[in-house]
């Protein structure tokens, strides 16, 4: 079980890395319009 002493700090660090990715996603508006993007490919421009 000693491996947990390394894994837990690693997991905590990973959390902050993932949060960084989510921050990017939100600030670039990835969640702004969830319906339209899916159907955009079906529309003619």
């Amino acid at each position, binding site marked *: 079980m000693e491996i947990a002493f390394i894994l*837990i*700090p690693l997991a905590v660090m990973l959390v902050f890395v993932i*949060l960084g990715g989510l921050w990017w996603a939100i600030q670039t508006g990835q969640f702004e319009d969830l319906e339209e993007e899916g159907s955009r490919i079906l529309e003619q421009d």
Partner: protein
Amino acid sequence: MLSLTHPETQNPWLGLDIQSEWERFSQRHQAEEAIWTSHVWVEKMHCAACSGRIEQSLKQMPGVLGVYASAASKRVKIVWDASRTHPSAWFQNFNAIGYPALPVTEYHALTDRTREQRMMLWRLVVAVFCMMQVMMYAYPTYVSASNDITPEMIQLMKWASWLLTLPVMLFSATPFLSQAYLSLRQRQLGMDVPVALGIVVAFVMSTLATFAPGSWWGDVTYYDSLTMFVSFLLIGRWVDVKLRNRTAGALENMMRRIPNAVQKKSDDGQWVQIAASNINVGDILLVLPGEVFAADGDIMVGATSADESMLTGESEPVIKHQGDRVIAGSGNLTAMVEMRVEQVGAGTQYHALVNLMASASTEKPGIALLADKLAQPFLWFVLLAALFAVIFWWTTDPVKAVMAAVAVLVVTCPCALSLATPAAMLASAGTFAKGGVLIRRLQAIQAMSEVDTIVFDKTGTLTDSLLHVQQATLNTEAHHLPIYDVLASLTQRSLHPVSKALHQFALTQGGQVGLVLNEFEEIVGGGLQANISIQAMPVSAVKLGNAAFCGAIERSEDALTRQVYLMSGQMQLACFDLVEEMKANTQLAIQQLISQGLDIQLLSGDKIAPVLRLASQLGIPVALGLQKAEDKLQRVQTLQRQGHKVLMVGDGLNDGPVIAAAHISIAMGSGVPLTQAQADMVILGNDLSVLVSLIAHCKKTIFIVKQNLVWAAVYNAAGVPLAIMGWLPAWLAGLGMASSSLLVLVNALRLTHWQKGQV
């Protein structure tokens, strides 16, 4: 409050003190020159306590005549006197009390909305993500046997949990903490105070237990409860923001319709791009298909069809030829046109519509006022209950005492109570607006749900205000004359409804305009006269009008129609019978209303015979003709004395006193100038069948409001004793609090579906 003695060095809002600047978010009072009404947007206004504080603080300022804040739409309406105060003064005051405000112009509302939404989502994501990790470290200690995990491992998991809770405390929870701090600094009790107190106490207890275990605070940590509680709170706020965007969205959509820039013809004939705010009367604008008309004006070159559904309720595209009027906010659908601007800004129908909706969204319904009044005593009760829990448990178990108090603080978060009414009413108002029904006061929804008697006006309400030619009798001796050319040319210059009807009729009969008229004259209450020279016509003087005016012999005594004669000298060329026609769907609408058990009455100023005929056609039991405004008023008041709730449906213009006296009034028809309409609600378009489903939806709205209030009350009544007894762990209290708010909001969301014409 900041001093206003040296505003030039301190006040960032000074730029707004120029009239042309404040005009962008304000409207001048109709009668008083110096009185203005402004709308501002306050991002941090979340609850009834906040709006109450803003109103209180601003009302004390000299020159501010009225403040109406709506937490549900985050808007504040301010009525102020330009001779005694300036926008910068009260904007400064907003800053000083901790609620920065922004003027509501379309641009600001849009970007702030997006920013607010992104920020809220980000706080939520951080809280939820960290919560999941903390749960993972909390779970083993709940399920494992006492010696399964080594003390070192438990300590490590506590440290990890503490580290993961930090972002939740320092970032995700800051809206609650900072709001609580602000309201405490104001020596007021805001709704965030108990919440913040609960969060901070739980965090401090857990931190002590992590880094210095063993004293009276024991060694139990609450990071899981804490992060979960913050996450639930944020989910509530997030849904709140989403819902607000959806319901207030109707208003925002309208305000955003006017384009920011337009193509204007410059003096040398070139097209130049100018800002929409710089359009002046007389400018020639180029409008491409797909664009929105930025001002009221007439088409100069080209022809197109326009989508005016948002402004008039008319769902079909309207054909616009050269010379026709197009209105700001309507969409150009088919072709490129040039228009000449006749009306800009506050004078446009579009602007009147936006104002109408804006003032409705800041109006507080009676039930909401009750919630505001209860907020402060309720918060004191919560704090006292928490204090009681601490005292009650302290001697037996200090840890349990503190956590019971935290549970009380958390479980009673009064968001549900304060959201119950405005959320439901705004959801309905937004839905109605999309369906072409505008609400001037939110109280109208409540009044509408109680209606049992409906009084209709006739012309323009049940019947079309347009007349139709039922029968044309031509003089056989005059059949060689171009009668329809004469009729078309003569009526072209007049705006009287009869002239309009006859003009339309002449055109459909093949009549051509273009005859030369000399000495054209319109005699009020009589008719039209002119000199027209045509070969084969005995006398050039032509008259069109009623029998007395033309000197014709009244052909019949049929009171149901109106006769109009066309004379040339003493010779009668033709006689036209005109009738009012019932609107489409009127029959169906009246039948539905009667079958709903509503008492229908028809009061009209028209002659008795046509009123009775219409009533029998529609199956209206009570109908009275020759009713003047005071007769109608008396009748409505009599009904009210008998205990009836009266809805008056009219054209919204002629029956001022009746409309004011009735419990609630509706103005019908696309022809109503919105600026003058006094009615509580305006139904755009001509379809009366909306009325049935409108009443049903208002009833449903009030039902949901009551449901919400009862739910919030029951939940608190049950939650507080449980929390005091220590039977409610902090995380369960958080779950209860969040779900009670969510339930209220989701319940209100049911009101966003409204099928016009269906009960």
